[in-house]
């Protein structure tokens, strides 16, 4: 049965114009205004591209966009509206962990399938919710994959943590510490900072005096640039700078050639990875929006494709869509996707995160070996 469905899908993909006879209503909750809006925009753009591609495949999505402004109660409003007033077949989003968390409990209550594209908080898929599916890897993988990458080239002894005092920062560093302990790497500094601070010089100077092998940073967007600029100013020179996702994986960070070179970062997605359509997505995105996509855009794109295809195949029936998400398998720009239950997670895609390093002004995938395009350069130098 599944084979037939797959064959049918393949056929429709091969013959444009053959319609799955589908118009399907999908809700999309995102942070369009407010402090998190800059990243939210990546998700919006990713979804816009997904809709175009779905149309080509004959799936006409009636998208209902909701802005949650990054606040859980607004996110809940959006979800209640989508579930009861708009009667959507499924929901993609919300973006932030706090919002996704709040909405997840409602997904089960209203029995509305929900695909979370990019929220990292581990708990979201650890509560056993049946209707909640997560595409991206949770927070713990952000740190472990980075340290694994370094362990292939060296045995570092000490590590310093500098991170934003946010949900993402704290939960990532928490798991990083556990993993570092396991690897026998000693912690020499633990510095939380309030997001958006303009001056990190004294914190970084303090770390410099402790001479750690690794400096592990978790920062949103542009704090990453501020941190690296000031590290260069005071010549903080560890063997490696490790950046966990977010701010270290943006095109803007890359563009700061003087400070981004040789920095390692973990990411959900890179353009040069050999997942089908990744490069093509990158090129089309850049042509359409005039800037490079972040991994959030890729996650949102794939989440929307998966949700819309599954919903369309099941005629918009929520229960069947849920079953379809649970049993389905996809292979697109995010690599192989399958929502499975493992290690306490429910409906979690065991997504392999990638480690990239900036080399000569480009992000190069350096780990895991099977996705790598270049070897890591180590140790770090200015």
């Amino acid at each position, binding site marked *: 049965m599944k084979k037939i469905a797959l064959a049918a899908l393949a056929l429709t993909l091969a013959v444009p114009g053959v319609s799955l006879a589908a118009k399907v209503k999908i809700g999309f909750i995102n942070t369009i205004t407010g402090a998190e809006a800059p990243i939210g925009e990546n998700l919006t753009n990713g979804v816009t591209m997904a809709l175009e591609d779905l149309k080509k495949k004959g799936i006409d999505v009636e998208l209902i966009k909701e802005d949650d402004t990054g606040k859980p109660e607004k996110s809940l*409003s959006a979800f*209640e509206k989508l579930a009861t007033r708009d009667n959507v077949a499924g929901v993609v989003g919300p973006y932030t962990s706090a919002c996704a968390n709040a909405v997840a409990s409602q997904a089960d209550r209203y029995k509305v399938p929900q695909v979370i594209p990019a929220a990292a908080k581990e708990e979201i898929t650890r*509560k056993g919710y049946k209707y909640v599916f997560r595409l991206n890897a949770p927070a713990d993988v952000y740190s472990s994959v980075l340290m694994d990458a370094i362990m292939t080239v060296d045995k570092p002894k000490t590590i310093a943590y500098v991170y934003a005092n946010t949900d993402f920062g704290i939960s990532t560093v928490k798991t990083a510490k556990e993993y570092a302990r396991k690897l026998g790497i000693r912690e020499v500094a633990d510095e*939380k900072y309030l997001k958006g601070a303009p001056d990190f010089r004294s914190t970084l100077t303090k770390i410099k005096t402790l001479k750690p092998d690794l400096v592990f940073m978790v920062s949103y967007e542009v704090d990453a640039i501020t941190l690296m600029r000031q590290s260069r100013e005071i010549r903080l020179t560890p063997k490696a700078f490790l950046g966990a996702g977010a701010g270290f994986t943006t095109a803007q960070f890359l563009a700061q050639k003087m400070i981004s070179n040789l920095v390692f970062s973990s990411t959900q997605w890179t353009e040069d990875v050999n997942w089908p359509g990744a490069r093509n997505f990158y090129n089309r995105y850049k042509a359409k929006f005039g800037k490079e996509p972040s991994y959030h855009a890729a996650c949102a794109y794939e989440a929307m494709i998966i949700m819309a295809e599954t919903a369309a195949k099941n005629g918009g029936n929520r229960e069947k869509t849920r079953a379809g998400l649970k049993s389905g398998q996809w292979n697109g720009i995010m690599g192989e996707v399958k929502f499975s239950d493992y290690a306490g997670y429910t409906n979690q895609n065991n997504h392999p995160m990638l480690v990239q390093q900036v080399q000569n002004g480009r992000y190069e995938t350096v780990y895991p070996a099977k996705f790598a395009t270049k070897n890591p350069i180590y140790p770090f130098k200015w």
Partner: protein
Amino acid sequence: MTRFSIFTNRRGASPLALIAFVVIVCLLFAFPSLVESPYSRHIMVLLFLSTIMGESWNIIGGYTGQYSVGHAAYFGAGAYGTMIVMNASQFDADKLLELQDLAKDSRLSSLLLSAHDLHPWTGVLVGMVAALLLSLIIGSICFRLRGPYFVLASIAVAEIVRITVLNLADLTQGAEGILISTLPPLTIGNTVITDFSNNVPFYYIGLLLVLLTIFVTWLVQNSKLGYFFQAIREDQDAAHSLGISLTFHKNAALALSAVLTSLAGSFYAIYIKFVDPTTVLSLDLSVQIVLISIIGGIGTIFGPVVGALVLVPLSEVLRSNLIGESLISSGMVNSDSAFGHFLTENLSHAHVLIYGILVVVVILFMPDGVLGFFKSMVAKKRKEAA
């Protein structure tokens, strides 16, 4: 004039208004059985929440004239008190062992251990007590200051509370926030509520809290204490020379306001089942609380109700772009036309902008709030008629 007579208020008897009030309250009680949609109930819950916040602030801001822009601290106290106790009561054996281990050198962890033994819903009381203590501390610091200095001090204290909660992660789980998946059963009198899966219980809890705050506000307006509050608002120095203790009455007003605000926070927490410092302790929230009263009309019983009635639906309509959507779905505007595109793409980004414009317009043209504006309109009409 009897002070606690129901049928009179300061401005004289108005049985008609009272009848209207009773009818509306009856309708509100019947609402969940009349309207099926959970979404509209949700909007009502948000409306109640805003009203409670507005009424609570009104006591210190509207009646006593002390413009606290730090009420998020009390809201957060209620929200965190409730969530910490509730969360602690649900600890499993492993977590308890781990805590006992930690409790040796962390006082916060031992605090959590004792919270585990409390009844889960006593968190609401814990929140109220915390808000009360906080208000006394804040009052003793801030009430030495006047006017703009008081405003700034109240902001500063609220920020200290926010950062402290953010950093005391052993107790509050810091930036990660506290998440609860199921609420424990709630016993009120003889009824036990176990099923929180639809929002009907929250609707009624919210409605009762609204009535409570309105009742308290009415008491304030019509009691001796309330007169003293208002005397302080009108002229602090004159009130002082009349022998009214400024320190005592300001602190009493703040404490009352803080405890009620903490109830709003508890209500928010159990409804959303998630709290973190950004959502329940931010300056944004403090400003929002002030807005409700001022837009509606401060120093009046129903001002905050009007404020909530204006702000909540407005922000929901703007947020979800209901106007644009309905124009398009009704066929009045083609979704592919330039205007349709503008409605779906641009307007959805502009809702905070519209909100801001509304605030400016109200302040410039209705300085006494919406309620005050209509009252003076009516008064004008009457004068003309006479």
